[in-house]
């Protein structure tokens, strides 16, 4: 079993980087994910179908295409990339932040779907009742809507995290495969399979991938069950 735990520093870096990238991608997607899910679940406006299609695009497009589009817009010479670099000092190209962006975008449709479903399941009469008790719409959202959609939020967040852990195509297209910077677990595994004698490393990282993904899944189940028990929806 020793060969399994005996990771090289580069392999450890890939594991750490993957977890960092996935966590940042998940956390950064949550606020816009909630906002877009709210818009899609409750809004009625011109272009809603278009927005819905746009959100789902990364799910349908080949990841390479998504990665290339990201490169065009958020790359050094892309309009958004140049703007962000100039005004906020945020650089995406060939950085781990770019990997997080790619992973976040790829997981976004999954997150929005889960949150949207839970928002649609909220009994709006509860919100009306909170309103008659003096809560303004912002308070109603914070104290009633948000706690009621918590199971959906957790599910959405875990889906986004899991997607980010496995993201490969868009990431490698957008930010390449640079050890210690953008080489996440899938990229590292891919690299191992491309060199002679890399089988052991590939297998080690594969098993680690499985363990992390299972842990995330179990954590989400436990969390969701705890929230569900606390809530006891009538």
């Amino acid at each position: 079993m020793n060969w399994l735990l005996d990771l090289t520093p580069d392999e450890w870096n890939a594991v750490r980087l993957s977890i960092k990238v996935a966590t940042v991608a998940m956390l950064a997607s949550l606020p816009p994910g909630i906002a877009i899910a709210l818009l899609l679940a409750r809004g009625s406006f011109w272009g809603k179908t278009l927005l819905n299609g746009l959100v789902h695009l990364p799910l349908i497009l080949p990841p390479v295409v998504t990665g290339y589009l990201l490169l065009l817009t958020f790359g050094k010479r892309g309009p958004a990339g140049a703007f962000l670099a100039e005004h906020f000092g945020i650089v995406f190209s060939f950085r781990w932040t770019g990997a997080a962006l790619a992973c976040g975008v790829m997981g976004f449709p999954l997150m929005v779907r889960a949150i949207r479903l839970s928002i649609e399941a909220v009994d709006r009469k509860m919100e009306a009742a909170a309103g008659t008790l003096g809560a303004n719409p912002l308070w109603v959202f914070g104290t009633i809507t948000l706690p009621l959609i918590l199971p959906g939020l957790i599910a959405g967040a875990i889906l986004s995290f899991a997607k980010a852990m496995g993201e490969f195509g868009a990431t490698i297209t957008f930010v390449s495969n640079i050890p210690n910077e953008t080489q996440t677990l899938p990229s590292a595994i891919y690299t191992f399979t491309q060199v002679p004698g890399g089988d052991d490393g590939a297998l080690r990282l594969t098993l680690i991938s499985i363990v992390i993904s299972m842990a995330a899944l179990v954590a989400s189940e436990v969390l969701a069950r705890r929230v569900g028990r606390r809530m006891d929806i009538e």
Partner: protein
Amino acid sequence: MSVLVDIRHRLGDFAIDARFESAGRLTVLFGPSGSGKTTLINMIAGLIRPDKGRIEADGRVLVDTAKGIFAPKHKRRIGMVFQDARLFPHMSVASNLRYGRWFTPASERYADMDAVVELLGIGPLLGRRPAKLSGGEKQRVAIGRALLASPRLLLMDEPLASLDEARKAEILPYIERLRDETRIPIVYVSHSIAEVARLASDVVMLAQGKVVASGPTVEVMQRLDLLPAEERGEGGAVLDTNVLRHDEAFGMTVLGSAAGEIRVPGLAVTAGAPVRIRIRARDVMIATERPSGLSALNILSGTIVSISPGEGPSVEVGIDCNGATVLARITEQSRHALRLRLGGQVFAVIKTVSFDSANTSAGLPLEADG
């Protein structure tokens, strides 16, 4: 404190055109389902925006479409108790109760947690989750939650409609206490005559989106012809009485009313306490001479002041007994046989056993009315 509603509103094929004003302690919006009463109460709460009109509560304009005024629901400070309780499932009973307090300006907070908990008897429930409560308990917590927001006006939308008889009987006394012991005016939606007679100081009767009668309960309840068809059998005169004495030997209570003494099955209230009774018109017999050799104990003498056609072969006869009007439903045949006509002297006969918990209840304290 008064409520004024004067609105016009369309909902598909259904049009509401209603105006009423009430300064009562507990005003019941009464009518069959589909008469627009829930829509009206939702408009007072701010949950529905009327097409046109004005709504005022306590002299404060909440809605005036002509001037473009529409106070949002969270700024109205109007409590609402829904038919389905709507307790927040993710909070304990105690947190539910405290919810409205956060949003009430400290200077306007008059409701006291301990007093409300004691008034509604919900002390043992505080640590529980709403899902673990019975229907009646949920409704009591919902009432407490609305009260603890220190509302200027309390709205109750058929709070008993989804409960069985036993649960209703459990909650009614709490609503009576609310009416008599707090200073919050209540507007209450109901389609049940029993609830109206028991709770209402004032009634606004609705039919097909229009107000067909409004005023003090005792007066409005005289209009049997306005009652919804399914409730007409329950209709009858409502009298406010006081306990004169208890007849221990026979287990009866003697009530004093303008119409004279009325004997009812023993009530567990002290002498002098107000009692409201509803004498169903179908329970009243008419005699042209004082009957003798009759088991019925209540014989009230009076003058016929109205005769109107009832359903089928019946007529409804109003008898003025010394200022209190008793209604009797008899057949057209009997009216002929007895030659009843306006101004005729008759006796209204009511069996003691026709009174039960459904039509005998603690009344409004007379001196505190209005």
